[in-house]
């Protein structure tokens, strides 16, 4: 019994049906962690992108080194680092928040590249035209560059959202009760790992297929020439 829901081990199918609601409870946590992690990645990534684009090398180089470091080291170690080291400095977060923070930090390194690539993909001529029209730097960015960069950025971000979802099971190592952890607990108690773990795989497959279809749909529907922000 888990979350107050009992399982029925009389047959394989009965077992699968009885544990489905329990796994879906785990799925809710998985989705919550994905959303929070993605949000952190979007915000922190934007900060990295801005720092890396800074004209001052004393600002841009450290940002480039830090993002490279975040990208090249395993999420699992970053997670353990945050989980064990932050409390030593008086920052005590719930396991869920630590996990979401680790996901967000790792992926911020990737999203910062998405922002950079999206902005750099706007043709040089657009900047020159804005300049010829006497638009100020800030106005050029918000009214010319951003509307054209956004349709390029959104699909790439969607792919990272899917990747984050697939990395959420790592949070089980810091006791977060996401779907894989729930399946393992069921396995530990019933000695049947095959059915819960296969179901988790199946649910993941359904989730990622839906999400990828959503990303493709967005990619098709977004106007490539730019989204008017007014």
């Amino acid at each position, binding site marked *: 019994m888990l979350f107050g829901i009992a399982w029925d081990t009389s047959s394989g199918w009965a077992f699968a049906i009885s544990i489905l609601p329990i796994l879906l409870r785990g799925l809710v946590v998985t989705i919550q962690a994905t959303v929070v992690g993605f949000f952190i990645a979007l915000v922190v990534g934007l900060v990295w992108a801005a720092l890396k684009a800074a004209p001052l090398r004393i600002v841009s180089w450290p940002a480039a080194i830090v993002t490279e470091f975040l990208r*090249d080291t*395993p999420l699992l170690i*970053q997670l353990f680092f945050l989980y*064990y080291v932050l409390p030593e400095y008086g920052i005590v977060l719930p396991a869920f928040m630590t996990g979401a923070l680790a996901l967000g930090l790792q992926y911020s390194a990737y999203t910062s590249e998405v922002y950079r690539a999206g902005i750099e993909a706007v043709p040089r001529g657009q900047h020159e035209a804005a300049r010829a029209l006497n638009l100020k730097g800030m106005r050029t960015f918000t009214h010319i560059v951003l509307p054209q960069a956004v349709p390029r950025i959104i699909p790439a971000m969607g792919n990272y959202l899917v990747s984050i979802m697939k990395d959420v*099971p790592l949070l089980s190592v810091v006791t977060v009760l996401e779907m894989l952890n729930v399946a393992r607990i069921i396995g530990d108690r019933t000695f049947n*790992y*095959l059915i819960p*773990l296969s179901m988790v*795989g199946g649910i993941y497959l359904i989730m990622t297929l839906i999400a990828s279809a959503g990303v493709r749909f967005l990619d098709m529907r977004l106007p490539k020439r730019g989204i008017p922000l007014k």
Partner: protein
Amino acid sequence: MDWTAYLNPLMQGAWVTIQLTFYSTILGAILSFAAGIGKTSTNLAVRSLAVTYIEVFRGTSLLVQLFWLYFALPVAGQALGIDLRLPPVVAGVLALSLNIGAYGAEVVRGAIEAVSRDQYEAAKALNFTPRKTLWRIALPQAIPEMMPSFGNLAIQNLKDTALVSLISLSDLAFRAEQLRNFTQDSTTIYTMALFMYFGLALVLTAMMKMLEFYVGRWRAGGR
């Protein structure tokens, strides 16, 4: 305890991580080519097998795959009356290479399809068999284009090896966790582990760049 005392056990773990990365990258590369070429095949059975493999392993989480191979497969084997209990190292390498192979397959397929139509038409005009067209025309031009993505995947694979510590393989991540439990000195140990992974990633990046430079000679026109 002094930080130098951690160096030896962490190094032993790093050596296991290097070996795991090496074997799973090689096996993953073989799977990438098999599934990537399979997906471009005209044979429906081969193509659907490749597509299924790619979708299943790209669509689920690596940790789920690892746990499935390690915990669920023996149960499935029991039901069928076969012993499918895998030693941790086999389950680890298998999960890592199956996972990275599925991502690599998309890279291989993309690069083969990006070879210009004219090249295939010229090969046909010269009466090349499909096999010869693949080996002599498509792959030599496609492989240099795959290299930057393969470099990223190799780094991805190195990072992913940390997960095998969860099925009790004594890699770098496992040693770090073990030392932490023993000494409670989290900051030093995990900082060292992070920097060791970073160092390994830099070396791996350099090696992949060298490989990229080497196969770059195969490009048409000898660029």
